[in-house]
C-alpha cells in the first residue's frame, strides 16, 4: 500500500537512472586519505595519534569525548603523515589526519572476525555499535548508540528503516538494498533487540521496485518485519514526514521521533551495525554515489572514509566539460563544495557534479507572494513571510513564525519564481537567533 501522507513536497526530476543500475564498485586504495576527526553531530572526538604514528586498519585514531560523540578509526594500515586543518565537506576547515597507506591494508588485531551475535545482550550490542564509531549514514551523522538510548520514559514501539532515498541523483541506498539485503536486516534486527521493539518497517520509495522486491524477499521469515512502498515525493525520507506517512503520528514541533515512540535509522547505518557487531569491523567505508552530467563515468563507489573528492572523481573518469557545482550529498540539501581537496566522511552519501549550464542561479528578486512556497513546505511554514522578515532584519519575528522548525529541505526555494535563496535566509535567521540566545546566557 503506497502512501504519501504529508502535506507539501515537490517532484524534482530524479535522474537516478544515471547510476541506479550500476553495481557497487570498490575503489582501490588512493595514495592518501584525509580522515576528518569531526564526522558526527555532537562533540568532536579527540585524536589519540600523532604525526608519525603507524596505524593498522580499524585502529582507533580519535576517541569519543563524552556521550554524544563517536570514535574515528583508521580506514587502512599506514602512517600518519600530518594532522592539520583541511577542507571539510560541511563547513569551514577542520582538523584531520592524513594517512599514507602502506598498501598492505592490514586489520588491527581483534578486528574483522566473525562472531556469534545470537546471545548478545542489548547493552553489549550497543557498546559494540559505539566502539564501531557508528553514526547516522543518511547524512545527519548523529551517533547511533545515542539514538539507541532513548530515556526510560520514552518507550519505542516502532523501528523504521529509512530506505526512501528521496534525494534526486542518489542511488547508494538503492544499491545497498539490492546487493546486501540480508546484512541490512541483520543490522536492523540488532537495533530491534537493543530497543526491545517488536515491529520494524522498511520504507522504500516506489521508484525502486527492484529494491522493494529484494528487501521483501529477505524479510520473508522475520517476525514483525514488513516492507512499505511509499509514493515518490521529496522529502519523503525526512524523518518527521516519513513517520507521519507510515504511522500518522506527528512528531511534536521541537521534539524528536522518540516522543511518539518511533526510531528511524538509515539502512546504511543498519548495514554498518551488522558489520560492526557481527564482524568487528568499525565504520570506515561507505557507498558514495558519484553522478551528474559533469562526471566522466557515474559510479556507486565503495570508498574509504578520508578518500579525497579529487581521487574519487578521478576514479570515476574525471570532470567532464564545464563543471559548475560539486555537491556533497544530494542536490536538494547537499553542500556545494569549493575544492576537490575535501574528503569523504561517514555521512557523505553522494558527490553530484552539475554542469555550469544546468545550474539554477539565485537572483533574490522581490517576493511576489505567489504562495507556491507555502503550498510545498512539508513543515507547514510560511517561507514567503519569513524571508521578508529576515530581509528586514526582523529576526525575532522570524522566530515567532517558526523559522526554527525549518528542516532546510529546500522545497520552497525549488519552486520560488523570484529565485530567492530562501534556505540561506533561514540559516541566517537561525544563526542570529542562536547568537542572541547565547549572548543572553
Amino acid at each position, binding site marked *: 500500500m503506497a502512501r504519501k501522507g504529508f502535506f507539501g513536497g515537490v517532484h524534482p526530476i530524479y535522474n537516478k537512472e544515471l547510476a541506479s543500475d550500476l553495481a557497487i564498485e570498490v575503489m582501490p586504495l588512493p595514495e592518501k586519505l584525509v580522515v576528518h576527526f569531526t564526522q558526527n553531530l555532537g562533540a568532536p572526538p579527540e585524536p589519540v595519534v600523532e604525526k608519525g604514528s603507524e596505524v593498522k586498519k580499524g585502529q582507533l585514531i580519535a576517541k569519543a569525548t563524552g556521550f554524544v560523540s563517536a570514535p574515528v578509526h583508521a580506514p587502512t594500515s599506514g602512517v600518519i603523515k600530518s594532522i592539520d586543518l583541511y577542507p571539510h565537506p560541511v563547513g569551514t576547515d577542520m582538523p584531520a589526519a592524513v594517512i599514507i597507506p602502506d598498501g598492505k591494508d592490514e586489520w588491527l588485531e581483534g578486528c574483522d572476525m566473525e562472531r556469534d551475535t545470537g546471545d548478545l545482550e542489548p547493552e553489549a550490542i550497543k557498546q559494540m555499535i559505539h566502539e564501531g564509531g557508528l553514526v547516522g549514514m543518511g547524512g545527519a551523522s548523529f551517533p547511533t548508540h545515542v539514538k539507541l538510548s532513548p530515556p526510560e520514559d520514552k518507550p519505542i514501539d516502532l523501528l523504521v528503516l529509512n530506505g526512501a532515498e528521496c534525494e534526486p541523483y542518489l542511488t547508494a541506498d538503492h544499491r545497498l538494498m539490492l546487493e546486501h539485503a540480508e546484512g541490512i536486516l541483520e543490522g536492523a534486527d540488532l537495533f530491534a533487540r537493543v530497543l526491545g521493539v517488536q515491529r520494524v518497517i522498511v520504507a522504500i520509495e516506489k521508484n525502486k521496485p527492484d529494491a522493494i522486491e529484494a528487501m521483501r524477499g529477505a524479510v520473508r521469515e522475520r517476525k514483525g518485519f514488513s516492507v512499505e512502498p511509499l509514493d515518490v515525493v521529496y522529502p519523503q525520507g525526512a524523518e518527521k514526514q516519513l513517520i507521519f506517512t507510515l504511522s500518522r503520528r506527528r512528531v511534536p514541533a521541537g521534539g524528536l521521533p522518540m516522543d511518539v515512540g518511533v526510531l528511524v535509522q538509515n539502512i546504511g547505518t543498519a548495514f554498518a551495525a551488522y558489520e560492526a557487531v557481527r564482524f568487528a569491523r568499525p565504520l570506515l567505508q561507505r557507498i558514495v554515489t558519484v553522478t551528474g552530467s559533469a562526471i566522466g563515468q557515474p559510479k556507486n563507489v565503495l570508498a574509504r572514509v578520508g578518500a579525497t573528492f579529487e581521487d574519487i572523481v578521478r576514479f570515476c573518469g574525471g570532470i567532464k566539460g564545464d563543471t559548475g557545482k560539486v555537491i556533497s550529498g544530494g542536490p536538494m540539501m547537499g553542500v556545494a563544495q569549493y575544492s576537490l581537496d575535501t574528503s569523504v566522511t561517514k555521512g557523505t552519501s553522494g558527490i553530484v557534479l552539475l554542469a555550469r549550464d544546468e545550474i539554477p542561479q539565485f537572483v533574490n528578486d522581490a517576493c511576489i507572494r505567489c504562495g507556491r512556497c507555502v503550498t510545498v513546505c512539508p513543515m507547514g511554514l510560511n517561507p514567503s513571510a519569513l524571508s521578508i522578515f529576515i530581509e528586514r532584519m526582523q529576526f525575532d519575528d522570524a522566530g515567532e513564525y517558526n523559522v526554527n522548525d525549518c528542516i532546510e529541505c529546500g522545497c520552497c526555494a525549488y519552486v520560488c519564481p523570484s529565485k530567492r535563496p530562501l534556505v540561506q535566509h533561514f*540559516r541566517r535567521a537561525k544563526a542570529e537567533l542562536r547568537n542572541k540566545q547565547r549572548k543572553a546566557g
Partner: protein
Amino acid sequence: MITAVIALASLALLAGLGLALAARVFAVEVDPRVEAIEEALPGVNCGACGLPGCAELAKRIAEGKAEVDACPVGGDGVAHSIAEIIGRVFEGGGAKNVALVLCGGDDSVAVRRFYYNGIYDCNSAVLLFGGDKACSYGCLGLETCAGVCPFGAIDMLPGGLAVVDPEKCTGCTKCVAACPKGIIKMVPYEKKVHILCSSHDKGGRVRKICKVGCIACQRCVKEAPEGSITMDENLAVIDYAKDVPEEVAGVCPMNTIVTQVLGREKRTGEAAPVAAGGEA
C-alpha cells in the same frame, strides 16, 4: 438652516471646551530644555549613544542621567551647545574616533576561492565556508557595512573592498557591529598610519592568498619606535596611543601599511591609483 448652524456651533464649542479641559487636566510636565537639546542634537537617531533615539538622549541629558558629550556623532560642537543650554561648562576635546576597515584585499590582490551565488549580504555569505575570500579574515565586499552606515561614509572600491571616508565618519560604530569578520575597528581621527590587515594566518599562507597581507616579517616592529607596533599572532598591530612616523610605511614589503586611507597611497612619496574623492 439656522438650527444646523446653532447645532454645529454648539458642538464645536463643546469640543473646544473639552479639549481645553483635557489639556489642563492631563498636562505633562515637560522640561523646556529637552526640546532645545533635541534641536541641538544631530537628529539622525542612529543609536550610537546606545539609546533609541535623539529624543531619548535629550530627555536623559536634561534629567542629568547622561553626559553632554554622550553623542559621538555630534562631537565637541554639539556638546558645547548642549552644555550652554543646561548651564554647564564643557571642557571639550575627547579625540574623535573614526571607523577603519582593516583589510586591503580587493579582487586585484586577494584570491577568491569560488563564485558566490546568494544573498548580497556579508552576514549571509559567511554561512558558506566563511565567505568566498581565501583569506578567512578578509573583507567580503558585499556592502553590508555600507548599508548600515546612516551617514553614507562607507564606499566600495571596484574590486569589492569597503573603505570608510574619515571625513564623513561620525564614529557611531554601527559598521563595527555589522561586519561578520569583525575587521572594522575604531581608530583616532588624527592618526594617519595604519596596518590594513587583520589576518592571523602564518606568513607563508598569506603570501599565497593576498598580495597586501601582513606576513609577520616584523620589519615594521623594528623600524617603528619601541613598542608602538607589536605582534599579535602573526599580525602586526599599531598601538594608537603612541606615534608611528610615516616612514615606517615604506619598510613593509607587502605594502600593507598605508598613510592615507581613501587615497590609497601605500607609501610616502609613491602615489597609488587614487579612488574617487580621495586626496592625492
